[in-house]
């Protein structure tokens, strides 16, 4: 063999060996967590989780699996979403140590950190973590985990609103022709709220009472829906100089007025609809559009429909009929999302962190975000690109691509000091308007309440927090 050829062969072999070595050396955060956790076998971790389907993941699947792998038990305490923040804060203030693992939303991090209610995770990440797996987290959700340069939680659920629509209705040639004739533009997933109203009205006029143009959520979490719409109308929450609330600006009045007026093309009683009602209506084929969280797609497609825990979900009549798009305005709300954190009052902090790392890992999180049970949604780039996820149903690639785009273009939730209070009052104001109160009056009252809150909290402190939040691109997407 010629010398050159020999060198090439040897060189190639060496390269192949190096690649093999690299592959085998690539760390797996899930496996690392399991290996490290075995030393704590026999203990039980207490986990505070959102009541219902989210908690069922821990109760039925990941808890038992974790116990099999490590010998560590998991005791899940279910808490309704709106009580997660107050209950966990109360336990911390009481120093009860009731929870080792806490479920938190991104907007709560600042308040919880300031009250010493979250354990900094950087030492644990350094000890047990796999750095490369953090590079895989989608940029939209990466910010959530840190505050003032320290990591306090690991994301396990990347929430973002999507518009779900009936492709068959939108693609019907007769509908397309009639809509174009009436409105002068193509029937398509609406890109503005004006178009949303027109599409909704068109479909309702043609198909009601069998099918309505839309069925939106109108109770529960209304601060998310209004925040999203308000910002797409050009609204800003505060005047950055004076910190006066500007939710009652013309943008706000227009947003809330349209929100209320567009109820009339939706099913009777839609004012009382929550998440469950809009899901069941979509699955039953009663509405052509809704805006909601990512699990809707999996439910509408009938994924895991035979799961006992999902027996309350109406059997989907719209399998393969649902399309996915960004909500009108093109900037959906990154509506809450879920992260897991370690309580500073925990007596098992390492074990608690390892469970969280295991759930957050590339390997385990992919399984969880493909299940409807658990309400976990894609938050890693590898989730969006996963061949396994993309093969789950025929239009899953569209769904994942839309989710990814939504994350990249989404609005982050308002996160300032005592955000919870601002959220609560906004939600009440919106529901009051939906219930019949004049939108302008609702927003004027809301602005006055927000100004009162800002004064109580301290104008300068709140201004600093607001300026910090609003400086992020995801705040207003200008």
């Amino acid at each position, binding site marked *: 063999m010629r010398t050159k050829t020999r060198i090439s062969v040897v060189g190639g072999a060496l390269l192949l060996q190096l690649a093999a070595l690299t592959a085998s050396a690539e760390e797996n955060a899930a496996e690392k967590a399991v290996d490290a956790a075995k030393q704590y076998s026999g203990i039980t971790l207490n986990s505070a989780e959102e009541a219902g389907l989210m908690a069922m993941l821990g109760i039925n699947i990941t808890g038992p699996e974790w116990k099999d792998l490590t010998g560590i038990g998991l005791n899940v305490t279910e808490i309704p979403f709106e009580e997660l923040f107050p209950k966990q804060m109360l336990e911390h203030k009481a120093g009860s140590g009731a929870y080792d693992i806490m479920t938190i939303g991104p907007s709560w991090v600042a308040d919880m950190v300031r009250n010493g209610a979250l354990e900094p995770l950087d030492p644990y990440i350094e000890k047990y973590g796999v750095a490369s797996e953090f590079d895989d987290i989608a940029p939209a959700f990466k910010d959530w985990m840190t505050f003032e340069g320290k990591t306090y939680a690991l994301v396990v659920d990347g929430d973002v609103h999507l518009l779900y629509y009936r492709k068959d209705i939108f693609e019907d040639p007769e509908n397309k022709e009639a809509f174009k004739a009436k409105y002068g533009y193509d029937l398509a997933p609406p890109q503005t709220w004006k178009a949303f109203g027109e599409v909704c009205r068109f479909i309702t006029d043609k198909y009601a009472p069998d099918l309505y143009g839309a069925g939106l959520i109108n109770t529960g979490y209304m601060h998310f829906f209004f925040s999203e719409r308000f910002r797409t109308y050009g609204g800003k929450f505060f005047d950055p100089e004076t910190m006066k609330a500007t939710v009652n600006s013309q943008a706000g009045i227009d947003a809330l007025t349209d929100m209320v007026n567009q109820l009339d093309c939706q099913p009777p009683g839609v004012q*009382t609809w929550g998440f469950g009602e809009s899901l069941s209506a979509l699955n039953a084929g009663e509405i052509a559009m809704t805006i909601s969280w990512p699990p809707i797609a999996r439910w509408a497609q009938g994924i895991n429909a035979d799961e006992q825990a999902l027996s309350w979900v109406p059997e989907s009549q719209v399998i393969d009929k649902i399309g996915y798009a960004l909500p009108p305005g093109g900037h959906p709300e990154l509506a809450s999302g879920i992260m897991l954190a370690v309580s500073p009052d925990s007596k098992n902090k390492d074990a608690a962190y390892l469970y969280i790392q295991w759930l957050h890992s590339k390997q385990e999180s992919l399984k969880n975000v493909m299940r409807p049970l658990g309400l976990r949604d894609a938050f890693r780039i590898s989730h969006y690109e996963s061949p396994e996820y993309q093969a789950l149903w025929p239009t899953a690639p569209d769904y994942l691509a839309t989710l990814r785009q939504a994350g990249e273009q989404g609005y982050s939730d308002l996160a300032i000091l005592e955000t919870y209070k601002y959220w609560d009052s906004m939600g009440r104001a919106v529901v009051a308007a939906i*219930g019949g109160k004049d939108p302008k009056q609702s927003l004027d009252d809301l602005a006055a309440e927000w100004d009162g809150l800002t004064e109580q909290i301290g104008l300068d402190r709140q201004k600093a927090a607001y300026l910090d939040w609003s400086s992020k691109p995801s705040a207003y997407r200008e």
Partner: protein
Amino acid sequence: MRRGGVPPPHSGGQSGDSVASAAVSAESASVQAGDTRLFKYSLIAPATFIMVLVAVFPLIYLIVVSFQRLSLSDDITSFSGFVNYARILSDARLWDAVFHTLFITILALPIELLLGMLLAYHFLDDRPLKRLFVALLIIPSVISPMVAGSMWRLMFDDRYGPINQIVSWFAGHRVSILWTIDIVWAYPAIVITDVWQWTPFMFIILLAALANVDREQLDAAAIDGASGWRTFWEVTLPAIRPVMMIALLIRGLDLVRLFDSVWQLTRGGPGSATETISIYAYIRGFQEFDTSYIAAVVVVLAILFSVGLVLVLKRMAIAR
């Protein structure tokens, strides 16, 4: 054998000896009386201690906290003056909650009284299966108010509840009453739920009261030709008034504290239109951690309602 405090019968002797003897006896009696008092106090001391711990200490602590500045953002335990009390004056939402609470009380209480009275009259006489029906009627009152609120929320649900469906059948077309969202219907929903649950309480108390009205007076009124209404107004009502007032007082106090059923029905909404005092205090204190402020609110409202209660009790005493 000498009884405590009672000197033995004296059967003669010098008067000086009697006085000295009496003085010694009195002193012994006094000591013995003191021992008895001490013994009595020691018996009730543990219960008193627990009551002080459970009731008095929290009250004192509440007052102390009301003068601090404890909230989600602040942890100031030093005396902060009357800043929290001053805030109460301008807190429109608080006074709205007081108004909502009183409004529900004024609506629900008379209805419960009237229905309870009618039911009591109906079941006063022996009827077939009387005991069974009475037992069934009491069931709502033994259900947890949270459960009752949840149940009625489902009943009022537009999509899945039976009430709108039944109304629609009678109307001949779909009727969509937004019981828990529309302010016009939210109060009726709350009152219906409360009346359903607590009329049996009124009923059972009034039934017992009516059963104890002097039969002879009723017979005498009948003989004199008094009408049913006149008999009720001039014989029955005065006889049952003390018991009725107690029942009204108990229900009134319950309504002032109303939380559970309203929380399940409306969460105080739409907006804060049905927020009661308890719901407002819960949201401010336990969801928003405005601890010192809500302590001040509780102190002020406790004083106001205590004054009101004293006036009502005085009125009841005068009426007796």
